[in-house]
């Protein structure tokens, strides 16, 4: 692009940014420009490259190639401090504050220069009042809701009088009322000339708020649109993409009795950034694979924990396995009934990194009838036999006969962790992100093994963000959004557009939705 006149130059322009991680292009030839006073949406699924781009703009990553221009000048943003000096502020999705300190003290910690708590408190009061972000400087953070804590972060940015404010999924932790309040604040900021880069996958918010939307998919810009002129449908299909319609024809398996019955399952949010589950209903029958799609952080972790029994369900009948109510049973009892679980995180949840593979066999199978444990004494020989069998059956490649789990590659460890459960021939398998971060070969092997398990008459529930994967294996698909689960519908009937809309929350019941979140801001 030739030199433009100084006054017409956009506030920020990134040109042809590429960021490589090994062979993987997290961002590939991404360009974007933001004017003063513009609210610009960055839209995309998990892993589309939104975070990478933002980190480049905020200086915490350096691009492999490409240029960053600021007010018509080409610059290099060496680190976040440099970005803040330019006038870039960022509100992180998962911010960290000191619970025991007050609002003012927390903000003072993040500001450069000498400490003047009284003066700062006054400034905080003024800024927070001006922008409709009620905040009491002397309040202790421990007593505040997540929404109020986010205000601290926003006020901290505003005190530095930013020209560009980056907001990463700000409404993910907010109640709808808090979100509305935030939109007013952002509108007000934009009127004053501050630009906002707004990262989200929520289409309604983007239509409500943003002047421009750049849509990323697989690290590339697929569209640069005016959200006002798009429908939620068209945005959804741009975000999800139409290139993955390879719906594999299912063999039309016979489905049998209901194996897993979920009935009005509710669960509280797991920590301040978690999402509460609301009235989840779902049946999974023998011989079928049901997939739960959804963008990460919409309650999938809480859902998995409630099914596995790591967290007890709200009522005993909320989770039924075969004909047994298991809602209040622990994970060992559920395993003994024939259920098997594979969590999302391999290292530290599904397996202990520092333990040998045979010890990791004991982890889920010490009580499941493999005779590994007799009167409290562990028989390592049996665990080692099972470990060897799993490694052979699932092609787990390792350098030593019984290595530490952490020495395996992601794909091999995932094959082991999945194989450890499938080796039991469970009647029910609940698996969270079965192929997250594993190579294509391992992913194909795992998916095939899951399909084979269902073909043998077991019920399978997959929680996944990967729509390719879901269409490849699932018979029925439900979508989770903000802790609410849609009805499960046959995969053959669903279009990508519909799934995209559901991922953006179209099935949410908004009427009773607000009160459940509990943390309504108190001004």
């Amino acid at each position, binding site marked *: 692009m030739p030199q433009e006149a100084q006054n017409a130059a956009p506030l920020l322009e990134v040109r042809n940014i590429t960021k490589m991680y090994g062979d993987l292009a997290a961002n590939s030839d991404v360009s974007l420009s933001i004017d003063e006073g513009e609210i610009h949406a960055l839209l995309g699924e998990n892993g589309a490259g939104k975070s990478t781009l933002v980190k480049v703009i905020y200086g*915490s990553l350096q691009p492999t190639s490409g240029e960053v221009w600021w007010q018509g000048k080409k610059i290099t943003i060496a*680190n*976040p*401090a440099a970005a*803040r000096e330019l006038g870039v502020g960022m509100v*992180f999705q998962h*911010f*960290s504050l000191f619970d025991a300190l007050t609002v003012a003290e927390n903000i003072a910690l*993040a500001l450069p220069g000498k400490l003047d708590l009284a003066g700062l408190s006054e400034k905080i009061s003024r800024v927070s009042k001006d922008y409709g972000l009620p905040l009491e400087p002397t309040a202790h953070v421990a007593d505040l809701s997540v929404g109020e804590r986010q205000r601290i972060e926003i006020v901290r940015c505003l005190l530095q009088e930013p020209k560009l404010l980056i907001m990463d999924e700000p409404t993910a932790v907010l109640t709808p009322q808090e979100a509305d309040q935030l939109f007013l604040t952002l509108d007000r900021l934009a009127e004053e000339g501050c630009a906002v880069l707004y990262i989200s996958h929520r289409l309604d918010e983007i239509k409500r708020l943003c002047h421009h939307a750049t849509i990323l998919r697989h690290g590339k810009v697929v569209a640069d649109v005016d959200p006002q002129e798009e429908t939620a449908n068209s945005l959804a299909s741009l975000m999800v993409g139409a290139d993955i319609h390879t719906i594999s024809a299912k063999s039309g398996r016979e489905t049998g009795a209901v194996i897993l019955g979920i009935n009005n399952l509710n669960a509280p949010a797991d920590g301040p950034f978690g999402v509460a589950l609301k009235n989840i209903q779902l049946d999974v029958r023998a011989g079928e694979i049901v997939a739960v799609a959804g963008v990460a952080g919409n309650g999938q972790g809480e859902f998995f924990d409630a099914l*596995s029994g*790591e967290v007890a369900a709200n009522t005993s009948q909320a989770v039924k396995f075969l004909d047994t109510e298991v809602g209040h049973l*622990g*994970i*060992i009892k559920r*395993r003994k009934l024939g259920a098997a*679980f594979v*969590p999302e*995180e391999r290292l*530290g*949840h*599904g*397996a*202990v*990194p*520092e*333990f040998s593979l045979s*010890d990791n066999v*004991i*982890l*889920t199978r*010490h*009580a499941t009838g493999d005779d590994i*444990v007799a009167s*409290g*004494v*562990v028989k390592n020989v049996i665990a080692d036999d099972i470990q060897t069998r799993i490694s052979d059956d699932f092609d787990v490649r390792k350098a030593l006969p019984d290595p530490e789990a952490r*020495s395996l590659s992601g794909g091999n460890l995932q094959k082991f962790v999945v194989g450890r459960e499938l080796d039991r021939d469970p009647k029910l398998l609940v698996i969270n992100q079965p192929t997250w971060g594993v190579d294509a070969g391992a992913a194909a092997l795992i998916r095939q093994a899951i399909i084979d398990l269902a073909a043998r008459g077991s019920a399978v529930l997959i929680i996944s963000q990967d729509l390719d994967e879901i269409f490849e294996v699932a018979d029925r698909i439900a979508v989770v959004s903000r802790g609410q689960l849609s009805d499960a519908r046959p995969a053959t009937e669903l279009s990508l557009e519909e799934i995209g809309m559901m991922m953006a929350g179209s099935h949410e019941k908004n009427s009773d939705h607000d009160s459940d979140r509990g943390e309504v801001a108190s001004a």
Partner: protein
Amino acid sequence: MKLILEKRPQRSAKMALLSPLLAIALTVFFGGVIFALLGLNPLRALYVYFLEPLTSWWSIQELVIKAAPLVLIGVGLAVCFEAKVWNIGAEGQLTMGALAGSMIPVFFTGWQSPLTLVAMLVLGIIGGALFGAIPAFLKTRFNANEILTSLMLVYVAGYLADWLVRGPWRDPDGFNFPKSVNFEGWQVLPTIFGDRIHIGAILAVAAALVLAFVMAKTLKGFEIRIMGNAPRAGMFSGFSPKKTVWFAMLLSGGLAGLAGICEIAGPAGHLQPLISPGYGFTAIIVAFLGRLNPIGVIFAGVMLAISYLGGESAQIDLGVSARISQVFQGMLLFFILACDTLILYRIKLLSGGSRKVTGA
């Protein structure tokens, strides 16, 4: 320029075994430096401190007597620390064990039967375990940090003991000395191998062997290792973090209590204001020097017992304060932790344009 610690990709198993020896070598070397700075001949001073205690039968007996409580407490703490439960208050649990066990001779002075001793030992275990239960309750119920609560309770136990021996439990025929009645007959531990080593030493070795088996071969040991290593995986395995805290605190408290009553019913023979010369704290070093392995703890206990005896002989022969043993113990712990850190991490020197930490 700045230093950072970078995690090593692979732990060296050889270095993990060598690290306690390396730590001892460094402690001896810098101990020599300190002696030299005090104007003493470092070689002679080190001989007096570390080797002289091993040259006479009397001092070897003394060594075993001092090593026994260190091992007994140390194995409990090793299991506790393996579960990443940080019981720092073994000294207080030791005191409470000593007090609980002493109730028999104090209140049933005339009771003489083998059961007397059994009852005293059992009460000692219960006393220590109950005192360990307080931090366990506070942690599991209120998420209170057990490092602080267990440590603070040490002083509660100490003052309680002090008050009892000066007040209600004072020997009426004791010329107003702050001590309880003298324990006699079945109220004291039988001795073995000569006239001073008592069966506390056997209890200590037995406890180490049992816990070595538990940790290596049983599901309980697996539970403790997994909860200490990856609690999320432990919960996935079906274990309860709270139960692990309770188990670790009750076990280490109980063993500390047993060490306490063995100390009073053994070498002391009566309750007195000062029950131990800090065995409960020194046992923390013992547990780490033994690499949290119950068998390793036996050797570490002997090593630390030498540091107590060495302090005494250094005071007699060299005229330095017996506090020197605390200096040695502190140095030893420092070097163990430093060696362990350097097994897991390597030091890297960053020069020039250091990256700033992201303010989040």
